[in-house]
């Protein structure tokens, strides 16, 4: 967390977007992947969001706004893509959809954990992603998602409880 803050501070001073982007890109991509079928689509969203955010000279410490930008563009992407998705629905129905991995998996345990995360309800998963892999506070999560801090915290707890339950041996 300290390192991240140091990077952000450095970025704010030197306007080095590359440092900032390499720091936040994996987390942003993971966040964007919740709304997309492919990593390529998620990268499109992250690119648009980051450039938009940076060009408007937002304070890079305002991470909630950065994630809200990603979310906003992702939702626009879904709406734009809806018509195309309907046309392709039959094709997808007939073929096995290949979901590209969201994580760099090292063993079976991590695979099981990643699968459990994927199976969480969407509203819980997005809070979990922002909290664990993007290190946002509940206040920042609440601001990014347009919910209260209490809701963010309770969704996080529900997500952890759900994961714990699904990972328990039957």
């Amino acid at each position: 967390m300290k390192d991240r803050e140091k990077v952000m501070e450095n970025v704010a001073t030197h306007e080095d977007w590359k440092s900032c982007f390499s720091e936040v890109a994996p987390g942003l991509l993971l966040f964007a992947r919740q709304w997309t079928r492919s990593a390529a689509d998620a990268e499109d969203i992250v690119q648009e969001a980051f450039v938009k955010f940076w060009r408007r000279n937002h304070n890079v410490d305002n991470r909630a706004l950065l994630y809200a930008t990603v979310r906003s563009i992702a939702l626009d992407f879904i709406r734009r893509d809806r018509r195309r998705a309907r046309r392709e629905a039959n094709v997808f129905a007939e073929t096995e959809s290949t979901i590209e991995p969201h994580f760099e998996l090292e063993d079976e345990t991590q695979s099981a954990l990643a699968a459990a995360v994927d199976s969480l309800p969407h509203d819980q998963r997005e809070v979990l992603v922002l909290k664990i892999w993007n290190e946002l506070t509940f206040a920042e999560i609440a601001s990014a998602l347009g919910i209260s801090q209490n809701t963010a915290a309770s969704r996080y707890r529900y997500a952890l409880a759900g994961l714990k339950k699904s990972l328990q041996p039957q």
Partner: protein
Amino acid sequence: MSDFSELENELKKLRPARPSPVLFARVEEAMVNSESAKIIRPDRFRVNYAALGLGLAAAAVLLLLAKVNTDLRQGPSKSIVQNSPAPKTRSLLPAGRGIEGSRSSDKFIPAGATQVVYNTRDEGLQFTNRSEQPLRRLRYQTKETWRWRNPATGASLRVSYPSEEVVFIPVSGQ
């Protein structure tokens, strides 16, 4: 929360997939070339403007109708005032029995207006060009109906038109 600390540690060990090197190149290109980094605006906005235009056109028609009614009533009385000494003419006409009274059959009076919201959609957080904070975009689709009635003849006039309204509500940070 302490019950979950072990699970949280396990989750933190999961590393998100790295972005492709192509992404860095694309972002760099977009940063350099501001035109290529243009924000994609959904086509829906154009449709919205069309609906807004339609609504404004309907409103303009209503205003014209209202003006025509007013002119019909006020036009002749104005000429009387201009062509004759005002004090004498006025003193000869009994109250409520002037030109307006004789043209009462032309008079349409507003009988009501309704606005029915038949669809509301929350379109999530948005950013306008100059906003410093996210805005929640709500879209309302409504049907507005204006009615006039002529009490003398019983005739009625009704104009209905669809309208679409997009409202941005600032989302305050916490």
